[in-house]
């Protein structure tokens, strides 16, 4: 697999604020790559550098193995924060400007407009569009020229549930057609639902990078308690299927592998004449995991 995008120690400092602090990212062709981080973590700043509008303080990046040349951007369809259009131009005229910039045939405009259901409003001024329509016009604009990569920054921001579902379908669809997608979001659920890969950033630092399955899949946990927690823990040292044991104040938290059988654990203890006062098996919720990843 060839990487579509590689960044090396990418940094952006605004005075004392370290908005992006040495990111090393690698996005493979065909993946849906999520950049997940809380508000202010540096997602937009990162994408801004990748799109040539924010000058990096240091570090470098390379699109398509071709470095930072301006023409790379003609192969990328992007929606960065809110959609930006000439409000007094019609939807169609706005796309003509984009087509001219990208060197794309104007005949493609109707196609992308119908892909986002805006064809019937193409003669209306962009200022008369609703937020959702503007978002769709931006997606149409991003599709012009059949780009290899779609780069979307919080594309569901401000949309109603139906709009959100539409955008997610759109992303899945585009991915199914073989496009690489980079999606920045602070919504874990969104990344989990549409992405194949994810990097988690916080305060400009990369916390983790990998496949969504490895990083965000809900982890199985078992909570146990008994008279003597220390003795319990001792018995668990060589027990199979336990990844990590956490000794808490009133109980023990076991991080276990998938398919772990709590009944067998209970029997193991009773065979040793140890009786558990508490045994709960549960799946850790994704939110918790995200909070853990991004906690101080």
């Amino acid at each position: 697999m060839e990487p579509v995008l590689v960044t090396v120690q990418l940094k952006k400092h605004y005075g004392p604020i370290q908005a992006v602090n040495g990111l090393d990212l690698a996005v493979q062709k065909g993946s849906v790559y999520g950049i997940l981080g809380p508000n202010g973590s540096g997602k937009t700043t990162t994408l801004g550098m990748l799109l040539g509008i924010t000058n990096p303080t240091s570090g470098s990046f390379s699109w398509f193995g071709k470095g930072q040349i301006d023409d790379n951007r003609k192969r990328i369809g992007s929606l960065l924060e809110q959609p930006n259009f000439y409000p007094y131009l019609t939807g169609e005229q706005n796309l003509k400007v984009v087509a001219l910039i990208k060197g794309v045939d104007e005949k493609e405009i109707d196609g992308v407009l119908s892909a986002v259901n805006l064809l019937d409003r193409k003669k209306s001024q962009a200022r008369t569009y609703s937020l959702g329509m503007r978002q769709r016009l931006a997606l149409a604009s991003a599709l012009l020229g059949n780009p290899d990569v779609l780069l979307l920054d919080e594309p569901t921001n401000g949309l109603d549930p139906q709009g959100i579902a539409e955008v997610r379908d759109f992303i899945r669809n585009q991915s199914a057609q073989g496009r690489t997608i980079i999606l920045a979001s602070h919504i874990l659920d969104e990344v989990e639902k549409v992405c194949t890969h994810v990097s988690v950033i916080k305060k400009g630092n990369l916390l983790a990078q990998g496949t969504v399955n490895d990083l965000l899949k809900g982890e199985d946990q078992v909570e146990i308690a008994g008279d003597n927690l220390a003795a319990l823990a001792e018995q668990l040292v060589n027990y199979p299927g336990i990844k990590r044991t956490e000794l808490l104040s009133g109980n023990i938290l076991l991080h276990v592998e998938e398919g772990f059988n709590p009944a067998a654990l209970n029997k193991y203890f009773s065979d040793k004449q140890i009786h558990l006062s508490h045994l709960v098996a549960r799946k850790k919720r994704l939110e918790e995991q995200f909070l853990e990843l991004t906690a101080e």
Partner: protein
Amino acid sequence: MLRLLRIELLKLIPYRTFKILFLIYLLLMVLWLVGGKGIANTLGLTPEQVLGYPNIWNYYTLYACYFNIILTILIIFITGNEYTYRTLRQNIIDGLQRTETVQAKVLLIITLSIISTIVLTISGVIGGLIYSADADKGRMLEHGGFIFGYFIQSLGMMSMGLFFGTLFKRTGLAVIIFLIFLFPVDVILRAGILPDGSGDYMPVATYFLKIVPFPLDHVMSHGEEPTASAPTMLSLGVGFAYAVLFAGISWMITKKRDL
């Protein structure tokens, strides 16, 4: 090159403020010819002396230079709009180079300067035909050097607009600061602060006093002395140098800053 100009025209032509401002500019250009008699009168001259060939080129361009303030404000608007609508950012995201965004504006300025110069030439020829004494009808393009001076002044003023729009980003603020620079600041600097004569070639002085000078001798002598026949090479050179300077600084700013 043509592609950049096409992009700019695509943005400009449907823009209502452009239509209104350009219409006002055209109206002023026509109005001057219509009201020229009154202007001649206030100067103590006959209409033929002001509106006839070849003096019309000096007098007409003198006023037309002021009308160019409208085109300058137009350029400030469209430059500032690219920042307030965040479309400059979008254009670059879509694949335009930063340098190209400035090139496109410069091409538009050159185009508008050519158009305004054509407007001036055509209406000047017509005005002269109407007002010239029969004996002067053949002197149509004598003193035509002022037409070229007007072209340079148009370039320079709009380039100044590009600079103000780029520097201040917000259209309203940029226009106000431009107007302040146009009237009090430049005048005070020239008359009050800089040593005598050294401010003669400040940008505003160059564009409003030097390229097309007021034909003082002609007026004082009630038309006995001739008007100047063309702008001086020095004033044209300085005027053009400022045009390049303003565009160049705009380019440097656009190149450097985060958008």
